[in-house]
């Protein structure tokens, strides 16, 4: 399975132009409000600038990370909204043993909490570290951004995209990619010539433009192949291997135990004929 065979151009996607982000966190609070998520207990700041809380969690589906450093005597004060990337080929969906995740045609990768068994395979599989565990609950499940799927179905945009006054544009993936390339071409001195999310993990629904180099801002280096395509290499062989190896081993077992079986049958036959002989005397 590869993304080359599926067309994601019409799925809805976010274009987050970090050069336009002022780090206001309107998106972070809008998400809390829409999803009615709890505020976390925080202290001082957790990271650079005014960053809070320390990481995404069951209560925080999106978070603005601050970068506050100097380079060549120039201040760099930049803001990076981390969120679920709503991958085209989501690793979480691929590894989930109960099929709780689903990539919708509209774009968001949604999940059904009723199916979740809290095994956390998705947390291990996601290259962006997105799904978070409900450590606070007695029967914990995994939580993440829903892409505001219900809002999309009602003709609205996600809460964070709606709240953002500057940096987030929302539209079809094809349009967002086109817009991203357009901006890079129009202002080559303003942008790093990469659209993060275009190819990462096989392509995601969240695309980023930056001014500073990606590693300076803390973007994870992620393979350009879709994650399921890696495991698919191995996974697609499993049934075959299972059947072949299992079948061969069963056959071998049948053969190796055949002698014993025949011996047993022989012993039983001897035992019963011996008995018959005794009864006949």
């Amino acid at each position, binding site marked *: *399975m590869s993304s080359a065979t599926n067309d994601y151009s019409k799925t809805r996607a976010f274009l987050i132009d970090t050069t336009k982000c002022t780090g*206001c*966190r*309107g998106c*972070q*609070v*809008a998400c809390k*409000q*829409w999803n009615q998520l709890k505020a976390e207990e925080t202290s001082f700041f957790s990271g650079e600038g005014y960053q809070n809380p320390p990481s995404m969690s069951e209560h925080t589906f999106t978070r603005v990370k601050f970068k506050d450093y100097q380079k060549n005597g120039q201040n760099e004060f930049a803001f990076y909204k981390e969120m679920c990337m709503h991958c085209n080929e*989501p690793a*979480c*969906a*691929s590894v*989930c043993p109960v*099929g*709780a*995740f*689903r*990539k919708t045609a509209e774009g968001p990768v*949604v*999940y*059904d909490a009723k*199916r979740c068994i809290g095994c956390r395979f998705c947390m291990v599989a996601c290259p962006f570290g997105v799904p978070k565990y409900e450590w606070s609950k007695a029967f914990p499940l995994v939580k993440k951004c829903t892409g505001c*799927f*219900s*809002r999309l*179905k*009602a003709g*609205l945009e996600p*809460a964070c995209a*709606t*709240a*953002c*006054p500057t940096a987030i544009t929302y539209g079809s993936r094809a349009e967002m990619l086109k817009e991203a390339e357009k901006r890079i071409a129009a202002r080559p001195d303003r942008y790093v010539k990469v659209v993060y999310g275009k190819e990462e993990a096989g392509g995601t629904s969240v695309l980023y433009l930056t001014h500073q180099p990606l590693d300076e801002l803390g973007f994870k280096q992620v393979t350009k192949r879709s994650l*399921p395509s890696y495991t698919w290499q191995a*996974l697609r062989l*499993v*049934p075959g291997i*299972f059947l072949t190896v*299992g079948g061969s081993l069963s056959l071998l077992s049948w053969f190796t135990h055949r002698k014993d079986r025949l011996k047993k049958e022989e012993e039983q036959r001897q035992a019963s004929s011996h008995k018959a002989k005794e009864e006949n005397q």
Partner: protein
Amino acid sequence: MGISRRKFLQGGALAAAGVALTGKPGEAAVDAPELRTKGLKTTTTICPFCSVGCGLIVQTKDGRIVNTEGDPQHPINQGALCPKGGALFQIANNDRRLQKVMYRAPGSDRWEEKSWDWALERIAQRMKETRDKSFKAKELNKKDNNEYVVNRTDGMAFFGGAGLDNEECYLWTKFARAMGVGQLEHQARL
């Protein structure tokens, strides 16, 4: 002979492999959850924080505000909101909101709950007492040693408020000047 445990496990594994093979990976039968604000009563408001004057829509259910977000039709913010406006929900729904009239007696270390009537009656008395005591009909101007009619209540000051509606500001100013209050100030001075 019944199914041995080994056979059962083998069968289960086969079945799981079967599920993994057939159908698309991770297909869950999820219907789109319904928009939580569908069909709710909606009013518009203007943000109470800074002076950009962003528009918000407020949605209520059973007399409670259940959703606040940016008004997409407002020309200034077009649905956008900073974190303060975005948190308007928590002004409307908050245990720390004052809900009762409280009174602190002189020298006391605690609040006592009172009725509106009780408090307003006493406040009116205080206002009148202070006005009667400190009202200056005339005042001497030291520079020319003349007395002038000033009709001013010097013992009372009114503060506030940049968070009041215009109509409230108007009545506040009207009342203050009728009371002879010259010491009328608010946040604009700071």
